[in-house]
């Protein structure tokens, strides 16, 4: 897409009813922010607790049990996070799109998602061998460390985008 085309599309997003309501309705914006925060607290909290287990904390808890408990909440939280994030984005689409902290946040988000997918496709397949009482393999511990760093980066960028 050309630069003018992208800019036109972003500017159009800002004229939509949702964007106008976000900017002008007194309480919609803060409510959406609160829901976004509740969503990512659940998502990043779930990811962090699972990552810490993979890194060796609470080895008496089965990894599969933790995964069964945490993953559905993490998935459900995305249903709260993405629409609320989208609403905040459209309210100031051109500003966000040009914001370096926002761009980095999206890159880190994609990286975190790919990292989680890679974990599920590789080391997690053999989880039966290290489900409890054992040390997780290096690939799993590596994915956990990367996950903690990426999610920390996502949250930092999300907060800092208001300062750029």
């Amino acid at each position, binding site marked *: 897409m050309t630069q003018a085309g992208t800019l036109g599309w972003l500017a159009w997003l800002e004229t939509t009813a949702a964007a106008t309501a976000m900017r002008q309705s007194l309480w919609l914006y*803060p409510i959406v922010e609160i829901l976004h925060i509740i969503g990512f607290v659940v998502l990043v909290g779930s990811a962090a607790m699972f990552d810490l287990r993979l890194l060796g904390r609470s080895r008496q808890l089965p990894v599969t049990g933790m995964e069964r408990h945490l993953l559905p909440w993490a998935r459900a939280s995305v249903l709260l996070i993405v629409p609320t994030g989208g609403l905040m984005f459209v309210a100031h689409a051109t*500003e966000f*799109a040009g914001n370096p902290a926002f761009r980095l946040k*999206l890159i880190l988000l994609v*990286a975190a998602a*790919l990292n989680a997918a890679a974990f599920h496709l590789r080391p997690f397949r053999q989880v039966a061998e290290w489900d409890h009482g054992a040390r997780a393999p290096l690939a799993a511990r590596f994915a956990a460390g990367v996950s903690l760093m990426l999610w920390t980066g996502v949250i930092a960028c999300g907060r800092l985008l*208001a*300062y750029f």
Partner: protein
Amino acid sequence: MRRFAGVGLLLLAVGVSPVAAHHGWSSYDSTKELTLTGTIKEAGYEHPHGHVRLEVPGKVWSVVLAPPTRMEHRGLPASKLRVGARATVVGYPHRSTEDEMRAERITIDGATVELR
């Protein structure tokens, strides 16, 4: 990882000129306090921060105010932030955007509202 790199490039390619989000007070130079009196040419009672275009002799300033919820709470409803009204703002200039300032307080119709 190729997909990751592709997305990164795509994001960087969205090369729109950023209108700085300018939310933090640190973006403004608090050592240079300004007091401006002028006419409101344009008013936005919008999230995350309200703003006015304030015409003073020889210049039009873009003045960043406070979140609408705070202004409403402190007695500055949207109806008072009207185009054509005279306003005095006290605040600080943006460190890099030449015609932008963030207001510490605003006075309209004789009533002063603290914005921080």
